[in-house]
């Protein structure tokens, strides 16, 4: 079956190239000397002498060290708590039957359908009442429960055949042992997918942190990036924006590279797929 996979492979490469043009441009533009204008600025070909000037400028203008730390605290902090809440809730929905289960599940889903305009004013009030205004914890709190994660875990658990758990129960395992030793390892692909999604979402979040945080020393990467690279009237310094974007994205890319291998290798653990 060599032929089809070559064709598919070729198609994927071409698609990937088109898909990555914005990224390629960002890469090229971040090293291009002339920042704000110039006819060839759209070129993907690095036809210039590269400069580190934009990166330097980005570091000088923005407190990247502080931004990185704050963003990491928020993203990883949220994820840590989420894994606990979603595993418990996902397990309950997938494996247990109790009155009102479906109803409560749909009520959970409501969180997915709400959007900033609805959430900002009331949540800010709640955060203020809890004494968390201006703090990173205030940014994190609304996300500790994740309907998305619960939903994903529910679907993932449902896809795992019950035989494994039944075997464990026969062996005398408590429910939490079943969850920890049997289900979660098998749900690893789902968990990792969720982790990536959650990290990316909260790493890149802009509006809610903007609303909660005040002190510059607490602000996150996206706020920092916006503060020096965006101008609503006038022009854009594309080179600086490109450099700043790369700086913001870099940890995510690194994270993804590491997680990816784990993600794909995880199926080997349970020996599910041949």
């Amino acid at each position: 079956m060599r032929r089809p996979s070559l064709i598919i492979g070729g198609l994927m490469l071409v698609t990937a190239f088109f898909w990555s043009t914005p990224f390629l441009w960002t890469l090229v533009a971040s090293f291009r000397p002339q920042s704000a204008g110039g006819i060839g600025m759209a070129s993907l070909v690095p036809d210039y002498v590269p400069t580190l000037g934009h990166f330097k400028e980005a570091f000088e203008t923005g407190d990247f060290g502080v931004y990185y730390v704050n963003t990491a605290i928020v993203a990883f902090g949220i994820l840590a708590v989420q894994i606990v809440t979603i595993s418990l809730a996902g397990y309950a929905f997938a494996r247990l039957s109790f009155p009102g289960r479906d109803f409560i599940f749909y009520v959970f889903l409501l969180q997915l359908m709400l959007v900033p305009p609805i959430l900002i004013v009331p949540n800010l009030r709640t955060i203020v009442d809890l004494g968390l205004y201006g703090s990173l914890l205030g940014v994190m709190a609304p996300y500790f429960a994740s309907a998305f994660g619960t939903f994903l875990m529910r679907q993932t658990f449902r896809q795992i055949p019950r035989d494994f758990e039944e075997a464990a129960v026969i062996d005398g395992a408590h429910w939490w042992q079943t969850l920890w030793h049997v289900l979660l390892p098998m749900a690893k692909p789902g968990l990792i997918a969720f982790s990536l999604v959650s990290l990316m979402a909260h790493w890149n979040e802009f509006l809610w942190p903007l609303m909660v945080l005040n002190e510059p020393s607490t602000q996150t990467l996206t706020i920092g990036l916006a503060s020096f690279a965006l101008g609503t009237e006038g022009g854009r310094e594309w080179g600086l924006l490109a450099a700043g974007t790369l700086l913001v994205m870099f940890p995510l890319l690194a994270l993804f590279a590491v997680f990816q291998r784990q993600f794909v290798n995880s199926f080997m653990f349970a020996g599910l797929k041949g």
Partner: protein
Amino acid sequence: MTSVAAAQTPPIDIAGRPRRTLRVRLARRTWPYLLLAPSLVLLAAFTYLPIARVAWESLHDRPHGTAKSLFVGLGNYAALFHDKAFIQSVINNLIYAVGTVPPSMALALLFALALQSSSRINAMLRAILLFPSMVPLVAAASLFFFIFLPGVGLADYYLAKIGVRGFNWLGDPDIALWSLIAITVWKNAGYYMLFYLAGLQTLPGEVLEAATIDGANGWQRLRHVIVPLLAPTTAFVLVIALINVLTQVDHVIVLTKGGPSNSTKLVLYYIFEQAHENFAAGKAAAASLLSVAFLLAMSIVSLKTMERGAHAAS
């Protein structure tokens, strides 16, 4: 669970069956709720409270310039359906939905199928496809602003090289919505691919092997085995995709602000506008509640249909 019961010798009732003690019965009945408790408490504070507030607001109107809030019952809802801008935003959203959901889901599945085995190249390709979701919006929007710049932008620059004159991608009301659709598919396809990849990993290998042994070729395997088995994943992605159609408007906010001439105004942007520019909080709340209700209905329908299909298939 069995261990708890096994720890004590249960009393025997009249018919000779073991009778659980009240404590055990209560424990068994409540602990699903205990598992859900942490999530529910958090959701109550940060989700249900806002919803309640929105519902309350949607029944009131505080005309701009006055200080009193009046109870208007369903007046806001009626006003919505008389508002041309709202109707236009609903139509725009429908077009947007049709333009984004099927293509991004189909692409996601195809990408996942093509890239599921682990190899260096596949890992790199996957990263490239997922990249769009990794770009922070503040940058992505500027990036696309640049790409779509008439004249010097990326799209027009390379189109010019092959002799095609570029369009005013974001400034022409006939094209602008499609440009946004393209951006959305670009952003979401890789993201949905992630879930299909996860779903594919949890498929039981024996069933696929059995199908191959039975003589099914690639296409048949796909249609009759893989797709049905992936029903829970598809249900998930469909719900997420539908929700995104109504809840992702960052690109509208940054790139077009609903223009030109309302051609890219999506429902959520309409809500933003009413709430923050037109000081019409009541109408905004009413529109928000309608979207939430609509999405909930769609989600329930999708889930029930897909999952019933999965049962039928397996």
